[in-house]
């Protein structure tokens, strides 16, 4: 009789949303790996039909409380493309700053509250006095990210200021300038945080990955740029949506996706690790120098090292925020006027967890006819299953059952999955 074994967790803690995993082993070899997404569907794409572009901005924010700005900005850009709207530079810069505020908030939450405790064998960020200083640092960083969001958007969760063509109203420069001294201190501290993450202990699970991100053109990518992959794919946003292939799993309310013109069956990875591996040349010299000094070499190939990538991006976000605030000049008008017209368009931005895709088709009055949303986490699910399989294959013989289960859970957590986001995707 063959020896069967199952490693499973029904509800993974310290992730956003509800998911579990199951790995079935036969004679020590993983034969079945499943990420079970049992988060209930909410049918966003269905109820966006018949709605206005502004409603798409306000509604899609509600997909994710942690990265609403990514949804709002992506939706706005998609409609601006349909309506041939070019927003002025200061508005572009302000959107970039707004977006960076969300990176700071989201990455701080993940590094310090969700992922960090794994490296100290803690159940959470608040049960141990030894972790308190680390937690405080995270809460401080997060508060700064939220301050940027509050000033530009009114609140950090589901902000209210984004509209087609710009913003409803603009912050005054002096409000933003008030943040600079604190951001400066936080930037200095963030360099120490990079050092701290680089010094954490990692199990050596380097693998080859297909990294996918936007391509920085003359700066680290957030809102603009073609889509690029580590194996040489480079396509426009419009083209990218035509080559990803989604498929459904019976155990998941999220669809999975892969790139159809790659060799058969290649999962790809989106998120901070992909971004930094592909775009590290755009980091400022202070951060580059530190990275070099620490002996960090790109590409980083261990998913658990995503924590280092997030720390690098927080540091970059502080640095870039200071630059944007100092250079900000209040434009005369908060938004540009436009006439709606029929058409369709796709836009892709770099949400904290990776590329987020919005596609819309509207009628001549600008009312939505079709909507398609592809969040980062659903793009990573397939990759996650594959890596889980690799992990179990490599360690099944030498690790104890509980250790292996813990390592599986930690691997999934390292992706910073946003399960609430992942359950929205439409196949056309």
């Amino acid at each position, binding site marked *: 009789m063959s020896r069967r074994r199952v490693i499973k967790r029904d509800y993974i*803690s310290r992730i956003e949303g509800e998911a579990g995993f199951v790995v079935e082993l036969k004679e020590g070899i993983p034969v079945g790996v499943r990420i079970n997404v049992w988060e*209930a569907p909410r049918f966003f794409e269905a109820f966006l039909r018949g709605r206005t572009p502004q409603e798409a901005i306000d509604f899609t924010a509600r997909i994710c409380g942690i990265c609403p700005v990514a949804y709002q900005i992506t939706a706005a850009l998609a409609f601006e493309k349909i309506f041939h709207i070019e927003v002025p530079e200061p508005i572009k810069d302000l959107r970039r700053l707004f977006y960076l505020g969300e990176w700071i908030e989201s990455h701080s939450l993940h590094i310090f509250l969700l992922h960090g405790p794994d490296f100290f064998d803690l159940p959470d960020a*608040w*049960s141990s006095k030894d972790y308190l200083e680390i937690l405080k640092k995270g809460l401080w960083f997060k508060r700064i990210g939220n301050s940027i969001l509050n000033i530009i958007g009114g609140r950090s969760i*589901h902000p*209210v200021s984004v509209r087609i063509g710009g913003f*409803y109203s603009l912050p005054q420069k002096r409000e933003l300038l008030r943040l600079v001294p604190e951001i400066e201190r936080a930037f200095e501290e963030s360099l120490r945080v990079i050092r701290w993450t680089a010094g954490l202990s990692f199990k050596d699970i380097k693998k080859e990955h297909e990294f996918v991100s936007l391509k920085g053109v003359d700066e680290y990518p957030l809102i603009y740029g073609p889509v690029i992959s580590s194996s040489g794919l480079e396509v426009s946003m419009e083209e990218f949506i035509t080559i990803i292939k989604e498929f459904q799993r019976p155990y998941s309310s999220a669809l999975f996706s892969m790139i159809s013109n790659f060799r058969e069956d290649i999962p790809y990875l989106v998120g901070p690790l992909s971004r930094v591996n592909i775009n590290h040349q755009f980091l400022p010299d202070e951060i580059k120098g530190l990275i070099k000094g620490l002996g960090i070499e790109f590409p980083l190939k261990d998913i658990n090292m995503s924590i280092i990538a997030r720390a690098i991006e927080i540091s970059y976000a502080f640095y870039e925020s200071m630059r944007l605030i100092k250079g900000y000049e209040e434009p005369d008008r908060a938004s540009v006027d436009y006439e709606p017209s029929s058409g369709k368009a796709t836009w892709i931005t770099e949400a904290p967890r990776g590329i987020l895709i919005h596609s819309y088709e509207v009628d001549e009055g600008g009312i939505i006819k079709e909507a398609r949303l592809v969040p980062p986490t659903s793009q990573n699910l397939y990759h996650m299953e594959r890596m889980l399989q690799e992990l179990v294959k490599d360690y099944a013989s030498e690790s104890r059952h509980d250790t292996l289960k813990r390592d599986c859970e930690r691997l999934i957590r390292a992706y910073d999955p946003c399960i609430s986001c992942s359950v929205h995707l*439409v196949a056309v």
Partner: protein
Amino acid sequence: MKRLRIGIFKLTSCDGCQLSLLNLEERLLEMFKFYDIVHFKEGTDRTVKGSFDIAIIEGSITTDRQKEEVFNIREQARKVITIGACATSGGIQALRNWASLGEFKSYVYPSVETIESLSVSIPVNEHIYVDYELWGCPVSTEAIEEVLVAFILEKRPALPLYSLCMECKKKAIPCILVSSGQPCLGPVTKAGCGALCTHFRRPCYGCFGPKEGANINSLAGIFEGLDIPERDFIKLLDKMNSYAYRKARIEGIHE
């Protein structure tokens, strides 16, 4: 003082209201002196068996499993508090209530057989008794703090019962409806956000749900005068608190 046992639960939602709680930031550490978090999947691996002094629920009930879950929570909790539009009003996913679930499913998923979902999303308090509701999409961090502190002091939370209009008046924001004819839901909407949208010169779109006793039909009449026909008025109500606004409107008619 013995710390109070608190459980934080998530149903169908975006996680934003739990994040509002974490947005207490440094003040969160103060809360730990009074509260022992015995269940909070998003924040900790630790789950301690036993009852709760207070159970906080985010999200709406959209599967049978969740229904069972809230029955269990109710049995184990001294007080149940629901937070956010999903829990208090069914959330934005309640827009399915006025559509065909089958059509929605097949629009989003290639194969619908394995997609489990109830055909309506309604407030948690229509499934179980809820001791206190905190409205908002998202709830404000200040409101959560007020409730947590009030519970320690065993007093009733002091949260506004008036409409958003009062917040505009307090902040001296000129009325966007009267002065510029923009379709603002402020007059029928609960205060609590701090008049964010009007501060940004946009009309209120109803994150905090209908104010008690709101005369929604009267507002519909005013909007009609602004050239906003009934079908567009319904769309203004049909957002994150669609179920609650529609219900309040009908109750207003029968009063």
